[in-house]
């Protein structure tokens, strides 16, 4: 039998109306994903410890960016206080760490902690829309920051935690390479969960609220409850990021709830313009700009981050977002 490398003229695929725009081949994203995954797994054998710990920080911020993307990308509500739930998760994990060093348990507890904190504060936040939502979440985040300074164990000095154990029976992870691989595995796990969430009916309803809230309400849904659920989910994801941050730095302080972290997560989500993969890439890019390139520029990472924000504001992001929507695997 002969393999047909070139399709016969009769079977030539006629472009469907949907794919009349120039689009990239279907196999490309899969290959790109596989290459990226192989590169990410092989990273500890390729670069030095400093870059690995930066990469682990980038992954933590990627999880936080996904949490911000659930709100801004799906529900159309820009949050500027997600770092508060990261800090709540990190403190929860630090408290659990006094009992057990088992990473997965800390992760679950931190997720629950972040979700509970988001459920309480979300009652306030989901009453606002648009810029007011941004202002309210910003205010809430800073109040959590202030409360952590006043009340959290360790005060403004923060708390040190023992190294995390990935699975029962394994030794505690001290070397940055192993910590990085643990964080990578957890990030992938969270990514899969978020990917399922994005493809759910619930996500469609959230997109509906972002597009036209009264119509969703007219179909018999409760936008307030749906948004609160989204807020709680986002808080849970941010809490999980907190547990991972403990695994990386073995330290938590009120500075983890600072506005800069929230702003970085929101900016990363905006770079991703609706896509979770884009949000993760944006977070890693911004962490690289702040910590890696900033380190090269004598510690002026903050200025570099500010320039990134300005660039992001003035670039025609919406046209770029249009471009990604033309990729064949993304449903409109």
């Amino acid at each position, binding site marked *: 039998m002969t393999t047909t490398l070139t399709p016969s003229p009769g079977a030539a695929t006629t472009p469907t109306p949907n794919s009349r725009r120039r689009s990239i081949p279907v196999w490309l994203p899969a290959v790109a994903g596989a290459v990226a995954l192989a590169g990410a797994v092989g990273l500890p054998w390729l670069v030095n410890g400093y870059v690995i710990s930066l990469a682990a920080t980038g992954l933590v911020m990627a999880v936080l960016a996904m949490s911000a993307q659930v709100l801004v990308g799906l529900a159309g509500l*820009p949050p500027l206080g997600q770092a508060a739930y990261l800090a709540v998760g990190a403190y929860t994990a630090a408290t659990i760490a006094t009992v057990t060093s088992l990473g997965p348990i800390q992760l679950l507890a931190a997720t629950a902690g972040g979700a509970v904190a988001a459920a309480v504060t979300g009652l306030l936040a989901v009453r606002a829309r648009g810029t*007011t939502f941004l202002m*309210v979440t910003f205010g809430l985040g800073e109040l959590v920051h202030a409360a952590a300074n006043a009340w959290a164990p360790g005060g403004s000095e923060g708390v040190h935690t023992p190294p995390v154990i990935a699975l029962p029976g394994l030794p505690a992870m001290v070397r940055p390479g192993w910590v990085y691989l643990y964080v990578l595995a957890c990030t992938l796990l969270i990514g899969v969960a978020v990917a399922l969430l994005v493809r759910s009916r619930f996500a469609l309803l959230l997109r509906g609220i972002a597009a036209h809230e009264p119509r969703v309400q007219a179909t018999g849904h409760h*936008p307030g409850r749906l948004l609160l659920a989204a807020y709680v989910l986002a808080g849970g994801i941010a809490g999980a990021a907190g547990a991972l941050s403990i695994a990386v730095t073995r330290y938590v302080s009120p500075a983890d709830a600072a506005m800069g972290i929230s702003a970085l997560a929101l900016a990363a989500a905006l770079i991703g313009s609706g896509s979770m993969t884009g949000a993760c890439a944006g977070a890693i890019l911004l962490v690289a700009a702040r910590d890696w390139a900033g380190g090269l520029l004598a510690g002026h990472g*903050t200025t570099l981050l500010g320039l*990134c924000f300005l660039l992001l504001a003035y670039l025609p992001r919406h046209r770029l977002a249009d471009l990604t929507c033309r990729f064949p695997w993304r449903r409109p």
Partner: protein
Amino acid sequence: MGLDGLVNAYTITALDGVAHGLLLFVIAAGLTLIVGVAGVFSMAHGTLYLAGAYLAWHLADGGFTGLTLALAAAVAVGALGGAGLAAAVRPLTDRPLDQVLATLGVAYIAADQFSTVFGAEPRSVDPPQAVAGSVSLGAFQYPVYRLGFIAVAAVLAVALFWLVERSRTGAVVRAVVADAGMAAAIGLRTGIVRTGVLVGGGVLAVTAGVLGAPVIGPAPGADTTILVYSLIVCVVGGLGSIRGALLAALGVGQTLTLGVALAPGAAAFVLAAAMLAALTLRQRTTLPGRPA
């Protein structure tokens, strides 16, 4: 009895609260008008205060000359900063998130430059020597500068209140807050009003920085603190409302001083509860039929 019965540790703290509240009002009045009129949530508003505070520290010479110089410089810096922000957000009209990102970028760059130029440690600013002492109120000593500050800030607040609520200029500004489209349709030049409010807000914030430097001093991070409190004032008082901002600022000032003295640690929760109450009530009154 009389004055002595009135003066105790709590009334002294409450007086501090008035100073904080009036300072917050002068800063937040600009922000609330900027949000209300121009629709710009300026993340660089705290940066302007910090710029004023560093100006006061840099030009302080122990006399009134330094203070006067700093105030003159503050007006120039505030006007330039406000005009710069107006120019920066002009291409981003109707893209509020991008406006936030742009002003946040400016705030980041400025914060980094401040800590490079002025150092990373907090600076304390001494008031002019003539008003550096303290007066005795009953059994307590109270700084003269702070009393003077309360008087000056009260005058500023009254002037601002009159300008916005009673004058013709203020009527134009309030018209743009209420309905920008209608204001433009009857011939008001909303673009100029927007720029003017950004410039005015900038001048107010930098001036407040110079005057308030001995109260809330220049330090890295002070810009965020000021931004958060003025933001809470804006949310609680209602965007674009001077009257609401005055009441909210005085309330926040008392919460941050008297509240902390009475119930340490509860201030954050009181402020969050105030925001919740304001949002809930306002949603009921202005947006009937909106789902909760």
